[in-house]
Protein backbone atom coordinates (compact mmCIF):
# COMPACT_ATOMS: atom_id res chain seq x y z
CA UNK A 1 0.00 0.00 0.00
CA UNK A 2 2.80 2.40 0.89
CA UNK A 3 5.28 2.79 -1.94
CA UNK A 4 8.04 3.25 0.63
CA UNK A 5 7.73 -0.20 2.19
CA UNK A 6 9.36 -2.99 0.23
CA UNK A 7 7.56 -5.86 1.95
CA UNK A 8 3.96 -6.57 1.03
CA UNK A 9 1.55 -5.90 3.87
CA UNK A 10 0.28 -8.76 5.95
CA UNK A 11 -3.47 -9.23 6.31
CA UNK A 12 -5.31 -10.16 9.44
CA UNK A 13 -7.91 -12.97 9.27
CA UNK A 14 -10.59 -10.23 9.23
CA UNK A 15 -9.28 -8.31 6.22
CA UNK A 16 -12.05 -9.44 3.89
CA UNK A 17 -14.71 -8.34 6.39
CA UNK A 18 -13.13 -4.89 6.78
CA UNK A 19 -13.33 -4.35 3.03
CA UNK A 20 -16.92 -5.58 2.95
CA UNK A 21 -17.79 -3.12 5.74
CA UNK A 22 -16.32 -0.26 3.71
CA UNK A 23 -13.20 0.32 5.82
CA UNK A 24 -10.44 2.61 4.70
CA UNK A 25 -7.30 0.45 4.95
CA UNK A 26 -3.87 1.83 5.88
CA UNK A 27 -0.47 0.27 6.56
CA UNK A 28 0.24 -0.14 10.27
CA UNK A 29 3.11 -2.15 11.76
CA UNK A 30 3.41 -4.16 8.54
CA UNK A 31 -0.32 -4.96 8.32
CA UNK A 32 -3.15 -3.60 6.21
CA UNK A 33 -5.47 -2.33 8.94
CA UNK A 34 -8.81 -0.47 8.97
CA UNK A 35 -8.18 3.12 10.10
CA UNK A 36 -11.90 3.90 9.92
CA UNK A 37 -15.23 2.60 8.65
CA UNK A 38 -17.90 4.73 6.93
CA UNK A 39 -19.05 6.06 10.35
CA UNK A 40 -15.74 8.01 10.62
CA UNK A 41 -13.21 8.37 13.45
CA UNK A 42 -15.16 10.93 15.51
CA UNK A 43 -18.47 9.02 15.57
CA UNK A 44 -16.69 5.68 16.04
CA UNK A 45 -14.95 7.10 19.10
CA UNK A 46 -18.16 8.50 20.59
CA UNK A 47 -20.05 5.32 19.78
CA UNK A 48 -17.51 3.23 21.72
CA UNK A 49 -17.88 5.47 24.79
CA UNK A 50 -21.70 5.46 24.53
CA UNK A 51 -22.40 1.87 23.47
CA UNK A 52 -19.93 -0.75 22.16
CA UNK A 53 -17.21 -1.02 19.53
CA UNK A 54 -15.60 -4.06 17.91
CA UNK A 55 -11.91 -3.73 17.03
CA UNK A 56 -9.68 -6.07 15.04
CA UNK A 57 -6.43 -6.28 17.00
CA UNK A 58 -5.23 -9.48 15.33
CA UNK A 59 -2.01 -7.73 14.33
CA UNK A 60 -0.91 -7.87 17.95
CA UNK A 61 1.39 -10.69 19.00
CA UNK A 62 -0.13 -13.61 20.89
CA UNK A 63 2.32 -16.08 22.41
CA UNK A 64 2.50 -18.75 25.12
CA UNK A 65 5.25 -19.52 27.56
CA UNK A 66 5.33 -23.18 28.59
CA UNK A 67 7.19 -24.49 31.59
CA UNK A 68 6.90 -27.51 33.91
CA UNK A 69 4.94 -25.54 36.52
CA UNK A 70 3.84 -21.97 37.28
CA UNK A 71 6.79 -21.35 39.61
CA UNK A 72 9.32 -22.17 36.88
CA UNK A 73 7.59 -20.24 34.07
CA UNK A 74 6.87 -17.22 36.26
CA UNK A 75 10.43 -17.11 37.61
CA UNK A 76 11.79 -17.21 34.05
CA UNK A 77 9.55 -14.34 32.91
CA UNK A 78 10.40 -12.34 36.03
CA UNK A 79 14.03 -12.20 34.86
CA UNK A 80 12.79 -10.02 31.97
CA UNK A 81 9.92 -7.97 33.45
CA UNK A 82 9.51 -6.00 36.72
CA UNK A 83 5.98 -7.23 37.57
CA UNK A 84 4.97 -9.83 40.14
CA UNK A 85 4.30 -12.91 38.02
CA UNK A 86 4.96 -15.50 40.75
CA UNK A 87 1.85 -14.40 42.66
CA UNK A 88 -0.32 -14.00 39.58
CA UNK A 89 -3.38 -16.14 40.29
CA UNK A 90 -4.95 -18.57 37.79
CA UNK A 91 -7.29 -16.68 35.45
CA UNK A 92 -5.71 -13.32 36.23
CA UNK A 93 -3.92 -10.92 33.90
CA UNK A 94 -1.23 -8.32 34.55
CA UNK A 95 0.31 -5.41 32.62
CA UNK A 96 4.11 -5.20 32.51
CA UNK A 97 7.13 -4.23 30.39
CA UNK A 98 9.87 -6.26 28.79
CA UNK A 99 13.06 -4.43 29.82
CA UNK A 100 16.57 -4.20 28.38
CA UNK A 101 19.80 -4.09 30.42
CA UNK A 102 19.58 -0.28 30.61
CA UNK A 103 16.05 -0.42 32.04
CA UNK A 104 14.57 0.78 28.73
CA UNK A 105 11.32 -0.70 27.47
CA UNK A 106 11.65 -3.34 24.73
CA UNK A 107 7.85 -3.66 24.69
CA UNK A 108 4.85 -3.45 26.98
CA UNK A 109 2.62 -6.48 27.29
CA UNK A 110 -0.21 -8.29 29.03
CA UNK A 111 0.59 -11.53 30.85
CA UNK A 112 -2.22 -13.97 31.68
CA UNK A 113 -2.00 -17.08 33.85
CA UNK A 114 -4.21 -19.81 32.48
CA UNK A 115 -7.32 -20.45 34.58
CA UNK A 116 -7.18 -24.17 33.81
CA UNK A 117 -5.30 -26.17 36.51
CA UNK A 118 -4.36 -28.68 33.81
CA UNK A 119 -2.37 -25.87 32.15
CA UNK A 120 -0.25 -25.04 35.21
CA UNK A 121 3.01 -23.60 33.92
CA UNK A 122 1.46 -21.83 30.94
CA UNK A 123 1.40 -18.03 30.57
CA UNK A 124 -0.25 -16.18 27.70
CA UNK A 125 1.34 -12.99 26.38
CA UNK A 126 -0.14 -10.22 24.23
CA UNK A 127 2.50 -8.00 22.62
CA UNK A 128 2.59 -4.99 20.31
CA UNK A 129 2.36 -5.70 16.57
CA UNK A 130 5.31 -3.43 15.84
CA UNK A 131 7.50 -5.20 18.43
CA UNK A 132 6.47 -8.85 18.48
CA UNK A 133 9.32 -10.19 16.33
CA UNK A 134 11.86 -8.20 18.36
CA UNK A 135 10.26 -9.53 21.54
CA UNK A 136 10.34 -13.17 20.40
CA UNK A 137 14.02 -12.93 19.58
CA UNK A 138 14.80 -11.07 22.81
CA UNK A 139 12.93 -13.53 25.00
CA UNK A 140 14.04 -16.72 23.21
CA UNK A 141 17.67 -15.85 23.80
CA UNK A 142 17.14 -15.30 27.52
CA UNK A 143 14.75 -18.02 28.68
CA UNK A 144 16.05 -21.18 30.38
CA UNK A 145 15.77 -24.48 28.50
CA UNK A 146 12.87 -25.55 30.74
CA UNK A 147 10.64 -22.71 29.46
CA UNK A 148 9.61 -22.53 25.82
CA UNK A 149 8.23 -19.51 23.97
CA UNK A 150 5.60 -20.37 21.39
CA UNK A 151 4.36 -17.55 19.12
CA UNK A 152 0.71 -18.16 18.20
CA UNK A 153 0.19 -17.27 14.55
CA UNK A 154 -3.11 -19.01 13.84
CA UNK A 155 -5.40 -17.00 16.10
CA UNK A 156 -7.16 -13.68 15.64
CA UNK A 157 -7.78 -11.16 18.43
CA UNK A 158 -10.94 -9.07 18.70
CA UNK A 159 -11.62 -6.34 21.25
CA UNK A 160 -15.19 -5.54 22.26
CA UNK A 161 -15.19 -2.28 24.23
CA UNK A 162 -17.72 0.10 25.73
CA UNK A 163 -20.49 0.28 28.33
CA UNK A 164 -22.71 -2.14 26.35
CA UNK A 165 -19.90 -4.63 25.60
CA UNK A 166 -20.80 -6.92 28.52
CA UNK A 167 -24.49 -7.06 27.59
CA UNK A 168 -23.67 -7.75 23.94
CA UNK A 169 -21.20 -10.51 24.81
CA UNK A 170 -23.52 -12.04 27.43
CA UNK A 171 -26.00 -12.92 24.68
CA UNK A 172 -23.31 -15.06 22.98
CA UNK A 173 -21.32 -16.21 26.01
CA UNK A 174 -22.88 -16.61 29.46
CA UNK A 175 -19.46 -17.22 31.08
CA UNK A 176 -17.45 -14.27 29.74
CA UNK A 177 -19.32 -11.47 31.56
CA UNK A 178 -18.69 -13.18 34.92
CA UNK A 179 -15.08 -11.97 34.61
CA UNK A 180 -13.84 -8.93 36.51
CA UNK A 181 -11.31 -6.43 35.10
CA UNK A 182 -8.03 -8.22 34.29
CA UNK A 183 -9.61 -11.64 34.62
CA UNK A 184 -9.45 -14.25 31.86
CA UNK A 185 -10.86 -17.65 30.95
CA UNK A 186 -11.22 -20.09 28.10
CA UNK A 187 -14.88 -20.26 27.15
CA UNK A 188 -17.26 -20.59 24.24
CA UNK A 189 -18.56 -17.49 22.49
CA UNK A 190 -21.52 -18.76 20.47
CA UNK A 191 -20.13 -21.97 18.92
CA UNK A 192 -16.50 -20.86 18.98
CA UNK A 193 -13.81 -21.88 21.47
CA UNK A 194 -12.30 -18.61 22.64
CA UNK A 195 -9.94 -17.23 25.24
CA UNK A 196 -11.56 -14.12 26.73
CA UNK A 197 -10.08 -11.49 29.04
CA UNK A 198 -11.80 -8.47 30.56
CA UNK A 199 -9.39 -5.78 29.45
CA UNK A 200 -8.75 -3.34 26.65
CA UNK A 201 -7.16 -0.13 25.47
CA UNK A 202 -10.00 2.39 25.54
CA UNK A 203 -10.53 3.10 29.25
CA UNK A 204 -13.98 1.49 28.95
CA UNK A 205 -15.20 -1.80 30.30
CA UNK A 206 -14.66 -4.47 27.67
CA UNK A 207 -13.15 -7.72 26.51
CA UNK A 208 -10.39 -9.09 24.33
CA UNK A 209 -11.35 -12.31 22.59
CA UNK A 210 -8.81 -14.68 21.07
CA UNK A 211 -10.30 -17.02 18.44
CA UNK A 212 -9.02 -19.41 15.76
CA UNK A 213 -8.14 -17.41 12.64
CA UNK A 214 -10.54 -19.37 10.42
CA UNK A 215 -13.48 -18.61 12.76
CA UNK A 216 -12.70 -14.92 13.26
CA UNK A 217 -14.97 -13.52 10.55
CA UNK A 218 -17.95 -15.61 11.68
CA UNK A 219 -17.45 -14.51 15.29
CA UNK A 220 -17.03 -10.86 14.28
CA UNK A 221 -20.26 -11.01 12.26
CA UNK A 222 -22.14 -12.42 15.25
CA UNK A 223 -20.85 -9.68 17.54
CA UNK A 224 -21.53 -6.95 14.97
CA UNK A 225 -25.12 -8.20 14.70
CA UNK A 226 -25.61 -7.51 18.42
CA UNK A 227 -27.58 -4.44 19.44
CA UNK A 228 -25.32 -1.42 19.92
CA UNK A 229 -22.11 -2.85 18.39
CA UNK A 230 -20.30 -1.03 15.57
CA UNK A 231 -16.93 -1.80 13.91
CA UNK A 232 -14.25 0.66 15.06
CA UNK A 233 -10.96 1.43 13.32
CA UNK A 234 -7.43 2.28 14.42
CA UNK A 235 -8.13 6.03 14.25
CA UNK A 236 -10.66 5.88 17.08
CA UNK A 237 -8.57 3.28 18.91
CA UNK A 238 -5.81 5.89 19.09
CA UNK A 239 -8.01 8.77 20.30
CA UNK A 240 -9.72 6.47 22.84
CA UNK A 241 -6.41 5.32 24.35
CA UNK A 242 -5.06 8.89 24.38
CA UNK A 243 -8.10 10.12 26.34
CA UNK A 244 -7.62 7.13 28.65
CA UNK A 245 -3.99 8.21 29.24
CA UNK A 246 -2.64 4.87 27.95
CA UNK A 247 0.83 4.72 26.40
CA UNK A 248 1.56 3.58 22.85
CA UNK A 249 4.86 1.89 22.04
CA UNK A 250 6.93 4.05 19.69
CA UNK A 251 5.32 7.19 21.10
CA UNK A 252 5.43 7.20 24.92
CA UNK A 253 7.54 4.05 25.22
CA UNK A 254 10.85 3.07 23.62
CA UNK A 255 14.16 1.37 24.38
CA UNK A 256 15.56 4.51 26.05
CA UNK A 257 12.58 5.12 28.33
CA UNK A 258 12.21 3.43 31.70
CA UNK A 259 8.88 2.45 33.28
CA UNK A 260 9.54 5.01 36.05
CA UNK A 261 9.88 7.84 33.51
CA UNK A 262 6.76 6.50 31.75
CA UNK A 263 4.83 6.85 35.04
CA UNK A 264 4.31 3.11 35.16
CA UNK A 265 5.91 2.63 38.60
CA UNK A 266 2.53 1.35 39.83
CA UNK A 267 3.22 -1.78 37.78
CA UNK A 268 6.42 -2.55 39.77
CA UNK A 269 5.46 -4.03 43.16
CA UNK A 270 7.47 -3.76 46.39
CA UNK A 271 9.05 -7.22 46.19
CA UNK A 272 10.48 -6.55 42.74
CA UNK A 273 11.70 -3.03 43.66
CA UNK A 274 13.56 -4.41 46.66
CA UNK A 275 14.84 -7.74 45.36
CA UNK A 276 15.34 -6.79 41.68
CA UNK A 277 16.31 -9.68 39.44
CA UNK A 278 15.17 -7.97 36.22
CA UNK A 279 17.16 -6.03 33.60
CA UNK A 280 17.88 -2.40 34.46
CA UNK A 281 17.10 -2.84 38.16
CA UNK A 282 19.86 -0.42 39.23
CA UNK A 283 18.49 2.39 37.08
CA UNK A 284 14.90 1.75 38.14
CA UNK A 285 15.87 1.59 41.81
CA UNK A 286 17.76 4.89 41.45
CA UNK A 287 14.88 6.60 39.62
CA UNK A 288 12.37 5.37 42.21
CA UNK A 289 14.60 6.75 44.99
CA UNK A 290 15.74 10.07 43.46
CA UNK A 291 12.95 10.66 40.97
CA UNK A 292 13.46 10.35 37.19
CA UNK A 293 14.88 13.26 35.19
CA UNK A 294 11.71 13.42 33.09
CA UNK A 295 8.20 12.13 33.48
CA UNK A 296 5.27 11.23 31.24
CA UNK A 297 2.42 13.69 31.79
CA UNK A 298 -0.92 14.78 30.39
CA UNK A 299 -0.87 18.12 28.56
CA UNK A 300 -4.02 20.15 27.91
CA UNK A 301 -3.72 22.94 25.34
CA UNK A 302 -5.82 25.91 26.46
CA UNK A 303 -6.91 26.90 22.96
CA UNK A 304 -8.50 24.77 20.26
CA UNK A 305 -5.37 23.92 18.23
CA UNK A 306 -4.22 20.29 18.60
CA UNK A 307 -0.49 19.77 19.33
CA UNK A 308 0.78 16.70 17.53
CA UNK A 309 3.54 14.19 18.25
CA UNK A 310 6.92 15.98 18.17
CA UNK A 311 5.65 19.37 19.35
CA UNK A 312 8.17 21.06 21.65
CA UNK A 313 7.11 21.89 25.21
CA UNK A 314 8.57 25.13 26.60
CA UNK A 315 8.47 26.81 29.97
CA UNK A 316 6.80 30.25 29.89
CA UNK A 317 10.23 31.95 29.62
CA UNK A 318 10.95 29.96 26.45
CA UNK A 319 13.38 27.24 27.59
CA UNK A 320 12.71 23.78 26.17
CA UNK A 321 11.51 21.39 28.87
CA UNK A 322 9.96 18.52 26.95
CA UNK A 323 8.18 17.08 23.96
CA UNK A 324 4.71 15.88 22.99
CA UNK A 325 4.68 12.14 22.20
CA UNK A 326 0.98 11.77 21.30
CA UNK A 327 -1.44 14.58 20.60
CA UNK A 328 -4.64 15.29 18.81
CA UNK A 329 -8.31 15.93 19.32
CA UNK A 330 -10.22 14.13 22.05
CA UNK A 331 -13.80 13.64 20.86
CA UNK A 332 -15.18 12.95 24.37
CA UNK A 333 -13.16 15.83 25.87
CA UNK A 334 -14.30 17.85 22.84
CA UNK A 335 -10.95 19.58 22.58
CA UNK A 336 -7.25 19.08 22.01
CA UNK A 337 -5.34 16.72 24.34
CA UNK A 338 -1.77 15.46 24.47
CA UNK A 339 0.70 13.32 26.36
CA UNK A 340 4.41 13.86 26.50
CA UNK A 341 7.56 14.05 28.57
CA UNK A 342 8.67 17.05 30.63
CA UNK A 343 11.54 17.65 33.03
CA UNK A 344 10.30 16.38 36.39
CA UNK A 345 10.40 19.89 37.91
CA UNK A 346 7.55 20.83 35.54
CA UNK A 347 5.51 17.63 35.87
CA UNK A 348 3.14 18.78 38.62
CA UNK A 349 -0.50 19.05 37.44
CA UNK A 350 -1.49 22.69 36.95
CA UNK A 351 1.98 23.80 35.79
CA UNK A 352 1.63 26.27 32.89
CA UNK A 353 3.69 25.44 29.79
CA UNK A 354 3.84 26.59 26.18
CA UNK A 355 3.54 24.40 23.08
CA UNK A 356 5.32 25.41 19.89
CA UNK A 357 2.68 24.76 17.19
CA UNK A 358 3.63 25.84 13.64
CA UNK A 359 6.10 28.40 14.98
CA UNK A 360 3.60 29.93 17.39
CA UNK A 361 3.59 29.52 21.14
CA UNK A 362 0.29 28.16 22.49
CA UNK A 363 -0.51 28.09 26.22
CA UNK A 364 -1.15 24.72 27.85
CA UNK A 365 -1.20 23.09 31.27
CA UNK A 366 0.17 19.89 32.74
CA UNK A 367 -2.83 17.81 33.84
CA UNK A 368 -3.56 14.53 35.57
CA UNK A 369 -4.18 11.49 33.39
CA UNK A 370 -6.54 10.14 32.24
CA UNK A 371 -8.49 12.84 30.41
CA UNK A 372 -11.61 10.65 30.58
CA UNK A 373 -12.13 8.54 33.72
CA UNK A 374 -11.63 4.78 33.35
CA UNK A 375 -14.80 2.73 33.67
CA UNK A 376 -13.34 -0.73 34.32
CA UNK A 377 -15.46 -3.31 36.13
CA UNK A 378 -13.27 -4.10 39.14
Amino acid at each position, binding site marked *: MSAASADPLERTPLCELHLELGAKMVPFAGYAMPVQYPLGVLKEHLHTRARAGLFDVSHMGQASLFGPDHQTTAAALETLVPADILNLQPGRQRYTQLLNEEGGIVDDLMVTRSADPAEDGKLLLVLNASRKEVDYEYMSGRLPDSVRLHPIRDRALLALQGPEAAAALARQSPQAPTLRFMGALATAVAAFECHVSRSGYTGEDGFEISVAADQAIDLARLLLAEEGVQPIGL*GARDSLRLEAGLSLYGHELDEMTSPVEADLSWSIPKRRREAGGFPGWDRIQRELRDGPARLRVGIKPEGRA*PARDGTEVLEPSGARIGIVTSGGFGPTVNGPIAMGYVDTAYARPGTPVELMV*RGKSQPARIVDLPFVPHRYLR
Partner: protein
Amino acid sequence: MALERFTEDHEYIRVDGDIAAVGITHHAQEQLGDVVFVEVPEVGRTVKQKEATAVVESVKAASEIYAPVSGVVVEINADLAANPALVNEDAEGKAWFFKLRVADKSELDGLMDRAAYEEFVKRS
Protein backbone atom coordinates in the same frame (compact mmCIF):
# COMPACT_ATOMS: atom_id res chain seq x y z
CA MET B 1 -21.63 33.28 -12.38
CA ALA B 2 -18.40 33.21 -10.45
CA LEU B 3 -15.26 31.72 -11.97
CA GLU B 4 -14.17 28.51 -10.20
CA ARG B 5 -10.66 27.10 -10.21
CA PHE B 6 -8.91 24.24 -8.35
CA THR B 7 -5.37 23.44 -7.22
CA GLU B 8 -3.50 20.14 -7.02
CA ASP B 9 -3.54 20.64 -3.22
CA HIS B 10 -7.34 20.39 -3.36
CA GLU B 11 -8.16 24.04 -2.70
CA TYR B 12 -10.88 25.79 -4.65
CA ILE B 13 -10.98 29.48 -5.46
CA ARG B 14 -14.23 31.17 -6.48
CA VAL B 15 -13.64 34.53 -8.11
CA ASP B 16 -16.24 37.27 -8.19
CA GLY B 17 -14.82 40.49 -9.63
CA ASP B 18 -11.57 41.20 -7.73
CA ILE B 19 -12.56 39.15 -4.70
CA ALA B 20 -12.05 35.39 -4.43
CA ALA B 21 -13.21 32.92 -1.78
CA VAL B 22 -10.83 30.05 -0.95
CA GLY B 23 -11.63 26.72 0.67
CA ILE B 24 -10.97 23.01 0.38
CA THR B 25 -12.86 20.74 -1.98
CA HIS B 26 -15.52 18.21 -1.09
CA HIS B 27 -13.03 15.50 -2.06
CA ALA B 28 -10.41 16.98 0.31
CA GLN B 29 -12.78 17.00 3.29
CA GLU B 30 -13.68 13.38 2.58
CA GLN B 31 -10.01 12.46 2.65
CA LEU B 32 -9.35 14.43 5.85
CA GLY B 33 -12.24 13.01 7.82
CA ASP B 34 -13.87 14.83 10.73
CA VAL B 35 -12.50 18.39 10.87
CA VAL B 36 -11.92 19.53 14.46
CA PHE B 37 -9.87 22.72 14.11
CA VAL B 38 -9.48 25.53 11.61
CA GLU B 39 -7.01 28.41 11.72
CA VAL B 40 -7.65 31.33 9.37
CA PRO B 41 -5.25 34.19 8.50
CA GLU B 42 -5.53 37.76 9.75
CA VAL B 43 -7.45 40.23 7.64
CA GLY B 44 -4.98 42.51 5.87
CA ARG B 45 -2.27 39.87 5.44
CA THR B 46 -0.60 39.84 2.03
CA VAL B 47 -0.01 36.34 0.70
CA LYS B 48 1.88 34.99 -2.26
CA GLN B 49 0.60 32.22 -4.49
CA LYS B 50 1.26 28.81 -2.83
CA GLU B 51 1.95 30.42 0.56
CA ALA B 52 0.60 28.51 3.58
CA THR B 53 -2.32 30.72 4.61
CA ALA B 54 -4.69 28.66 6.75
CA VAL B 55 -4.69 25.35 8.62
CA VAL B 56 -7.29 22.61 8.77
CA GLU B 57 -6.98 19.76 11.26
CA SER B 58 -9.01 16.60 11.27
CA VAL B 59 -9.01 13.85 13.89
CA LYS B 60 -6.19 12.32 11.85
CA ALA B 61 -3.80 15.11 10.86
CA ALA B 62 -3.06 18.78 10.28
CA SER B 63 -2.99 20.17 6.73
CA GLU B 64 -1.93 23.56 5.44
CA ILE B 65 -4.13 25.48 3.04
CA TYR B 66 -2.14 27.33 0.39
CA ALA B 67 -3.24 30.53 -1.31
CA PRO B 68 -4.21 29.49 -4.88
CA VAL B 69 -3.18 32.99 -6.09
CA SER B 70 -1.43 36.04 -4.61
CA GLY B 71 -3.46 38.73 -2.92
CA VAL B 72 -4.54 40.42 0.29
CA VAL B 73 -6.85 38.74 2.81
CA VAL B 74 -9.98 40.92 2.99
CA GLU B 75 -12.35 38.67 4.93
CA ILE B 76 -12.24 35.49 7.01
CA ASN B 77 -14.99 32.99 7.78
CA ALA B 78 -15.50 33.45 11.53
CA ASP B 79 -18.08 30.61 11.65
CA LEU B 80 -15.37 27.99 11.13
CA ALA B 81 -13.60 28.59 14.45
CA ALA B 82 -16.79 27.85 16.37
CA ASN B 83 -17.97 25.10 14.05
CA PRO B 84 -15.07 23.38 12.23
CA ALA B 85 -17.43 20.53 11.25
CA LEU B 86 -18.97 22.94 8.73
CA VAL B 87 -16.01 21.97 6.50
CA ASN B 88 -17.37 18.41 6.36
CA GLU B 89 -20.96 19.54 5.89
CA ASP B 90 -20.53 22.13 3.16
CA ALA B 91 -16.88 22.35 2.05
CA GLU B 92 -17.55 24.08 -1.26
CA GLY B 93 -20.40 26.24 0.07
CA LYS B 94 -20.60 27.83 3.51
CA ALA B 95 -17.18 26.58 4.63
CA TRP B 96 -14.93 28.91 2.64
CA PHE B 97 -11.86 29.86 4.75
CA PHE B 98 -10.88 33.34 3.59
CA LYS B 99 -11.43 35.86 0.80
CA LEU B 100 -8.60 37.46 -1.14
CA ARG B 101 -8.41 40.62 -3.20
CA VAL B 102 -6.67 39.00 -6.16
CA ALA B 103 -3.38 40.70 -7.07
CA ASP B 104 -2.82 39.19 -10.49
CA LYS B 105 -5.64 37.42 -12.28
CA SER B 106 -3.24 35.82 -14.74
CA GLU B 107 -2.21 33.46 -11.91
CA LEU B 108 -5.64 31.85 -12.28
CA ASP B 109 -4.68 30.60 -15.72
CA GLY B 110 -2.40 27.94 -14.26
CA LEU B 111 -5.20 26.38 -12.18
CA MET B 112 -7.66 23.63 -13.13
CA ASP B 113 -11.33 24.06 -14.00
CA ARG B 114 -13.83 21.64 -12.43
CA ALA B 115 -13.65 19.06 -15.22
CA ALA B 116 -9.84 19.03 -15.07
CA TYR B 117 -9.88 18.79 -11.26
CA GLU B 118 -12.32 15.89 -11.30
CA GLU B 119 -10.07 14.12 -13.78
CA PHE B 120 -7.07 14.90 -11.52
CA VAL B 121 -8.85 13.35 -8.49
CA LYS B 122 -9.74 10.25 -10.48
CA ARG B 123 -6.13 9.76 -11.57
CA SER B 124 -4.55 10.35 -8.14
